[in-house]
């Protein structure tokens, strides 16, 4: 799976309240949630993301609550991968479960700047800054997990397999 898009750069310890403030959790529809993604710290985010863009952050991304609405909101904005130095435990599992791939790549995070264009190859685990050509290596996403992401998450993945 290959992803190409613009980098949206965030800091360390981005918590789930920043990703989707609790006052918007009175609905569970992904599109409605996406409209408020990062509403408090990046009001331009939800509108500005283009399909295929990549979110880049520091340490402990997704800390805080277990709300699955957080990865769901990010995915529904059009973000296709999150690259961070590290992820909080519950968010890590939730993100893959709803089909949002995560890559841990501390060196890439150091190099990537807001607005950079990147090419991410999940199968190879590579992250390339297109302008400069510099490439970073993360742990490759295994084939079964790529299938799961392609399907849109664990539930559609299991349903597809049951049918076939």
């Amino acid at each position, binding site marked *: 799976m290959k992803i190409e898009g613009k980098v949206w750069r965030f800091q360390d310890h981005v918590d789930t309240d920043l990703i989707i403030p609790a006052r918007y959790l009175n609905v*569970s529809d992904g599109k409605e949630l996406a409209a408020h993604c990062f509403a408090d710290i990046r009001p331009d985010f939800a509108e500005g993301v283009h399909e295929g863009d990549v979110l880049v952050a520091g340490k402990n991304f997704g800390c805080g*609550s*277990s709300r*699955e609405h957080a990865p769901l909101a990010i995915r529904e904005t059009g973000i296709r991968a999150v690259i961070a130095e*590290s992820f909080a*435990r519950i968010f890590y599992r939730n993100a893959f479960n709803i089909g949002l791939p995560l890559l841990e790549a501390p060196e890439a995070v150091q190099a990537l700047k807001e607005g950079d264009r990147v090419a991410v190859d999940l199968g190879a685990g590579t992250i390339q800054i297109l302008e400069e050509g510099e490439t970073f290596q993360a742990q490759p996403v295994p084939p079964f997990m790529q299938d799961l992401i392609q399907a849109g998450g*664990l539930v559609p993945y299991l349903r597809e397999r049951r049918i076939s």
Partner: protein
Amino acid sequence: MTQPMTITEKILAAHAGRELVSPGELIQVRVDLALANDITAPLAIQVFREIGAHRVFDPERLALVADHFVPNKDIASAEQARILQDFAKEQDITHYYHQGNGGVEHVILPEKGLVVPGDLVLGADSHTCTYGALGAFSAGVGSTDLGAVLATGETWLKVPAAIRVEYQGELTPWVGGKDLILFTLGRIGVEGANYKTLEFCGSTMEKLPMDDRFTMANMAVEGGAKNGIVAPDSITRAYVSERALHEPVFFSSDPDAAYENVLSIDVTEIEPQVAFPHSPDNVRPVSKAGEVPLDQVFIGSCTNGRLGDLRQAASILKGRTVAPGVRVIVLPGSREIALQAVREGIAETFLESGAVFGPPSCGPCLGGHLGILAHKERALATSNRNFVGRMGHPESEVYLANPAVAAASAVLGRIASPEDL
């Protein structure tokens, strides 16, 4: 030779049908109790339906608690709560709680004896780790994972490595579980225990009341931990003996169990702690808080909304009035606690002091309703998170402390120690 294990590993092994488990292993476990609330259950129920399930794995082993936006704050949240009610009826769920019969999920589940020592509990809420105070394994998961548990009663887990935190010595006045956990978070940082177990032990823990233990296990997730846990003892037994709905199993760590790290903390020098914005690990002793005027004080939540917490706050507010211009909100964690607070005259003390005494609800803790902060406003709260915008406007501030500090601060209108009164 059997391999020594921690209490967490023993509980996981017992639920995986295994003799032993080791950190890093992936295991399949059976779940004693699954939990979801009015924010997370609608998504989990959607997942349950999408995977083609028709009946929950056991209608007596699922707790559905509407507590975050309760009493329903608007039409959308009322619709969400309705999904729980309809599902509970359709599936004959025994433990469905809403408003009058309920309260804050992590307060009522132990109180009603749904969780007992030795259990394995998964909940679609990050503070599910609270039940570790009983010597149970409990962890927060997302709605997809919980939806699958609803259908099967099983899930897979990675066995966490453990950090042992040993607290030694006598606590000084006005210092309790909240201060111990805040102090610990200050030491290890908000990702210091990511993916790991925080096991709380030592001579201080042996005397610590259950309410304080719940507070500590509750905030294990603020260090990134998968679970927090306290080995059950006579205090635990006394708590569960009058409540347990099923038979407890008392586990403890082997003396030679392996830990990734051991932290030793002398509590005799610890004073009440305050976490400054915008992170629970940004702590300092209350004497070093400086001049921080407040607009609001919140006493309640799954962290500090128990009877012991309310008693402590009331003991300070008795005969005093809250500072002019400070809004003080007290939300008991459950109906039982509210009722007891009324019987003991605690509710009267709060009202006489100028506080409001509201319904059991998560309320302002997560900025849902019942006390939202305006632009630039400052609140001191007994809850668990002080992230940017947590209780309202993104430019508001939240400071975290224990109920005694909250009450003293309410009286003085600034962050203060009970010693300052």
